[in-house]
Structure formats: C-alpha cells, structure tokens
C-alpha cells in the first residue's frame, strides 16, 4: 500500500469518512438543510478529486482496486447522481415530513458502495460493494416507515436482494473454484492460459448474471423494481434508479468485458436474449401503468435492456471498447433524463401517495409550464427524440450493436423504442392536452434540479461532443 494507492480510492475514502462524521455531526444539527448541504459538500469534494485525478490509470491494493478512466467516468456519473439525489431529497423529505439526518448518511454509505463497484478489481470486492450499496438502499426504501407501502418495498427489496446476492456469492465461489482466484485480471489470465475449469463456469456465469442482473433490473430478475419503486420514497427511488443501475453496469461491464472476454461466445448470446427480453418486457409492461412511479420503474427496466445491448455488443472483441463507451455515454444521458423525470414526480407528489397517477398530470402544461416543459423534454429524451440526449445515446447503442453484427437485437431495440413512445407520450398528452388542476408547490431545489437536468438533457442533445470524447476515452477497461 502506498500513498498513490490511497489516492486511487480517495473519493471512496472521502465519502465514507464523511458519512461517519456526518452521522455524528447530525446529532447536533437541528436544521436538516445543513446536513444535506454538508453531505452535498462531501460529495462535491469527492467529485473534485475524481475530476482532478481523471485520466491516470492505476491498479492499486494488489489488484483489488482498478482506478482507470472507466471507473473515473462512472464515479463522475455516480457523484453527480448523488448531488442531484441530495438536492431533490431535501425538499421532498421536508414536504413529506420525514426529514431525518440519517437519510443523507445512508446515502453517503450507498454512494461509497457504488463508487467501489466501479473501482473493484476483485470479485469479492464487488460482492462487498454490492452489499454496501444495497444495505443502505433497503433502509432508504423503508424510510417512509411506518407507511405500509414503503415497508413492503423495503421488505421485498431486501428479501430478493439477499436472495440474488446469495447467487452472486455462489457464482463467485464457482469462479474461484474454476480459476483459483477472484481477481479479475487473474481470472482472465487463467482462462486465457487454459488453467480454468470451464465446466464450473457454465453455472458460475449464470449465477453472476443473476446477482448483477438483479441490480440493474434485467428481465427476469427485474420483478422487484416496479413494486419497490412504487412503494419506496420517491426521493430515494430517484437516486437509486440511476445510482444502483450505474453501479450494477459498472460491475457487469468490468466482469464480463475485462474478466471473461475469452468466454464472450458463451455469455454473448445469453446477454442478447436478456437484453431483448428486458427491452420488450419493460416497454410493454410500462404501457399498462397508470401510476407514474411504476411507469418509470418499467421505463428503467427497459433502459437497462438498452444498455445491455452494449454489453451484448461488447462480446465482440473488435467493438468492445466502442460498446463500453456507448454504455457509458448512455448511462450519463440516462442520469439526466431519468433523474429529471423523477424530479418532476417528486414535485407533484403529495402526502399519502396522492398525485402519483398519470391522470394527476392533466393540465400541468397550463399550471406549471416550465415544469411541464422539463417533463416533456425528459419524456422525449427517454423515447429518443431529437433534440435531446436520448437520441444520441440510443444512436450510439444501436451503432455498436449493428457494428457487432447484432442487427436483430438492434431491431428489437428500435421497435421497443417505438412502443415506449406510446407511454412516454401518454404523460405528455396528459400534461398538455388533458384538463385538470394539479396541485404542486414550487420548491427551490426541485425546480433547480428539474431545470438543470432538462437543460443538460437538451444541451447534450445538441452538443454531445465533449461528453462523447470523455466516454470514448473511458471505454477501455484496464485488464
């Protein structure tokens, strides 16, 4: 261990130390706004560190930590998510009367887990990071306790989360049994050197897919998503719908692309199937939803499917780097479009779960034109209509998919995008063409977050260049 080793995990360190400090400080803070600000300050500090050290590839802690541009990019995404997550939570928690300092502490814990997911160079660390990210999320899901829905969400999330992480552990055990190591570089080397017991991997790979597929909500491991998203406090959902997915994809990409590239012929088709099923299921089921939180939950499932296209494409070694950067860009795009949409949901939610039906959005276009416009932009971006970042993201994904020769998958992708237009537009229709008087107060941080995310969603649609370059330089996974 050296100081440079420490630098590689500096963001995690900052976040975790800050979390512990905040836990103590919070006892003395009456104004929870201050807690929120402090939490945000910690996240911002970590963000600064990431940005400062961006671009220096580093393998630290004897291969346990791999800090490369890939992880840096993801850390940026995660930390931005966290900042926005804190911003939107502040107003929401106050309005919903559950303003407690632990919320921010737990968020910081989970952020630490997410960051570790992107940094992990060892399967065992991935497992621990998943747990570190999940455990606080279980709690955040139940944060609106004693509200029954929130509790139920937490319960379901927890049981299924624990269930699927058991699969993950077993998968890791089998990988260990097969290759004699859990270090990803070691696994790759072992398989490449023909030392591995490949038969064991036929069970190990599916188990890994279960464990990580659960986190990113891929079909058929997605079923918790709508229930949890609906029941959990919206602020927590807004945050985890992006954060957990980003972390999950970080691990998925890292494991499959850098540890198991030799077996891409094996897992490639499986990922194709899962990706297709996820896109179809997510988009089709979303149509039936009348609750916007459930709708967005299915939407997030569907988007997992789109990103999985990149993973499927990454099975082709010649495009894997492109594919990873496409996934990265999409995650970045998704962060703003999706979190933005949730922000609007937060703005309209009222106590006891009112204001959550799509019906309730009727007339928003008149009542709060700016907010409605922002929502419309998010919806269009999620469909993939110009001039929003969603189009650029999908374009990149389809491009790598076709480049990898998976035209069929790309066709599933475009057809399901078409289906998705239906329910996203449904919201827009309600907002602009329905008649109603939605109640909502104008709250500073929510407004600012919605405005910012909408602006970024639009701007990245017009000028995606810088982020594209960034994503492109981050597509290479340190072996």
């Amino acid at each position, binding site marked *: *261990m050296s100081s440079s080793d420490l630098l590689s*995990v500096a963001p995690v360190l900052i976040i*975790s130390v800050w979390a*512990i400090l905040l*836990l103590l400080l919070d006892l003395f803070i009456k104004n929870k706004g201050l807690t929120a600000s402090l939490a945000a300050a910690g996240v911002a500090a970590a963000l600064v560190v990431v940005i400062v050290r961006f671009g220096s590839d580093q393998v630290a*802690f*004897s291969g*346990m*930590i791999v800090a490369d541009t890939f992880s840096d990019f993801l850390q940026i995404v995660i930390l931005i998510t966290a900042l926005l997550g804190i911003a939107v939570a502040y107003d929401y928690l106050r309005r919903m*009367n559950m303003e*407690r300092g*632990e919320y921010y*502490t*737990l968020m910081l*814990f*989970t952020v*630490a887990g997410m960051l*570790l997911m992107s940094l992990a160079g*060892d399967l*065992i*660390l991935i497992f*621990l*990071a998943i*747990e*570190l990210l999940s*455990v*606080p999320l*279980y*709690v955040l899901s*139940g*944060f609106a*306790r*004693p509200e029954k829905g929130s509790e139920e969400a*937490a319960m379901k999330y927890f049981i299924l989360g624990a269930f699927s992480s058991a699969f993950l552990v077993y998968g890791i055990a089998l990988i260990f049994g097969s290759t004699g190591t859990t270090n990803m570089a070691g696994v790759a080397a072992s398989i490449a050197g023909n030392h591995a*017991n*490949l*038969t*064991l991997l*036929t*069970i190990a790979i599916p188990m890994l897919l279960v464990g990580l597929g659960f986190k990113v909500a891929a079909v058929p491991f997605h079923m918790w998503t709508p229930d949890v998203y609906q029941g959990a406090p919206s602020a927590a959902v807004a945050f985890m719908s992006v954060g957990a997915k980003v972390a999950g994809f970080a691990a998925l990409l890292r494991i499959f692309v850098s540890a198991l590239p030799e077996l891409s012929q094996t897992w490639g088709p499986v990922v194709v199937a899962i990706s297709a099923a996820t896109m179809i299921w997510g988009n089709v089921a979303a149509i039936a939803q009348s609750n916007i939180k459930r709708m967005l939950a299915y939407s997030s499932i569907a988007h997992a499917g789109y990103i999985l296209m990149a993973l499927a494409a990454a099975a082709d070694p010649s495009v894997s780097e492109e594919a990873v950067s496409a996934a990265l860009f999409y995650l970045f795009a998704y962060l703003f479009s999706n979190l933005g949409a949730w922000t609007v949901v937060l703005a309209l939610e009222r106590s006891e779960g009112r204001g959550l039906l799509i019906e309730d959005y009727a007339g928003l276009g008149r009542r709060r034109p700016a907010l409605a416009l922002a929502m419309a932009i998010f919806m269009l971006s999620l469909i993939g209509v110009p001039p929003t970042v969603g189009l650029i993201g999908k374009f990149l994904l389809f491009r790598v998919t076709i480049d990898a020769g998976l035209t069929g998958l790309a066709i599933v992708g475009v057809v399901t995008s078409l289906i998705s237009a239906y329910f996203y537009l449904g919201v827009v229709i309600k907002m602009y063409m329905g008649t109603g008087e939605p109640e909502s107060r104008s709250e500073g941080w929510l407004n600012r977050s919605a405005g910012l995310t909408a602006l970024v969603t639009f701007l990245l649609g017009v000028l995606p260049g810088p982020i594209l370059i960034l994503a492109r330089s981050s597509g290479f996974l340190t072996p």
Partner: protein
Amino acid sequence: MTVELAIFLGLAVVAVGASIAMLVSRNAVYSALFLVIVLFAIAVLYLLLSAAFIAMVQVAVYAGAIMVLFLFVIMLLGTENVESESRRPWQFAAALVLSYVLIIQFLVVAIVLPGDFGGEFGALVDGFGGPASIGILLFKEYLVPFEVTSLLLLAAMVGAIVLTRRESSR
C-alpha cells in the same frame, strides 16, 4: 470407502436432512433449530477441510450470534406458525421442479461434463486455515474488503436503528 468419506457422507446426510427438515417444519422455531444443526454440520466439514479458524467463526458468529438473534426475534414476535396451507400450489410445484432441475444441472456439471476438479485432496502447507495465516491475508491483500466490511456493518447498524426506531412524531 475410506473413513473420511464415511464421515463426510454422514455429515452430508445430516446437513441435507436437517435442511429439508428446516424447510418442512411448520414451526419457525424448529426451522431455526434445524438450521443450527446444518450450520454445525458444515462447521465440522470446515474442520475436515482444514479450515479451523473459519469453523470457529462459523460456530461463534452463525450458530452463536445470528441464530440466537433469529430465535430471539421469532420468540419476540410470536410468529412460530404463520403459514396455513399454501395458497398457490403451482408456486410450490414450480419451485420443486426448478430445484430438481438445478440439482440435476449441478450433477451434470460435477459428474457428467469433463472438468478438472483436482481429484482427491492433496497435502497442504502447515498452518493452512489457521488464524495467523488468515489474519495476514486479511490485513495485507484483503485490506480493502476488510475495511469495506467494517463500513458495511456500520451502515447495517445505522439502518437497523432507523428501521426499528419508534416514531413518536408521526
């Protein structure tokens, strides 16, 4: 058949038998006790597999702490018997079929397919599985995971408190 194999088979039978008993017991307390038996059987297996430290941890943490916690909660809530007959027989049937298939798949992987499982166990270095060797590993190579574990436990603690604290204000 060697003595060791016989012991292994005996423990295996105990573990599997106790697991099944855990699954079928109507009473949650019984289930917990059967699980304890399984955990003990596994701990003995750990010993056989030269993992003395882990065996100790298994007994202390699992059987000792975790299972006691389980029993404590069961007793506290008085929820030994919550289940009537299953309301969804197809779920039960599907679960059985799936488990059956998965076991078959395990067997196929372990026995039918070619794969190098290293044959019978060979000799080991001295002190393998002892606290010292594990400790060295933990604090050198696995320092980061170890620290993460501590963080995780802290988070879990905070979480548990958040979840169980009674709210007077609401």
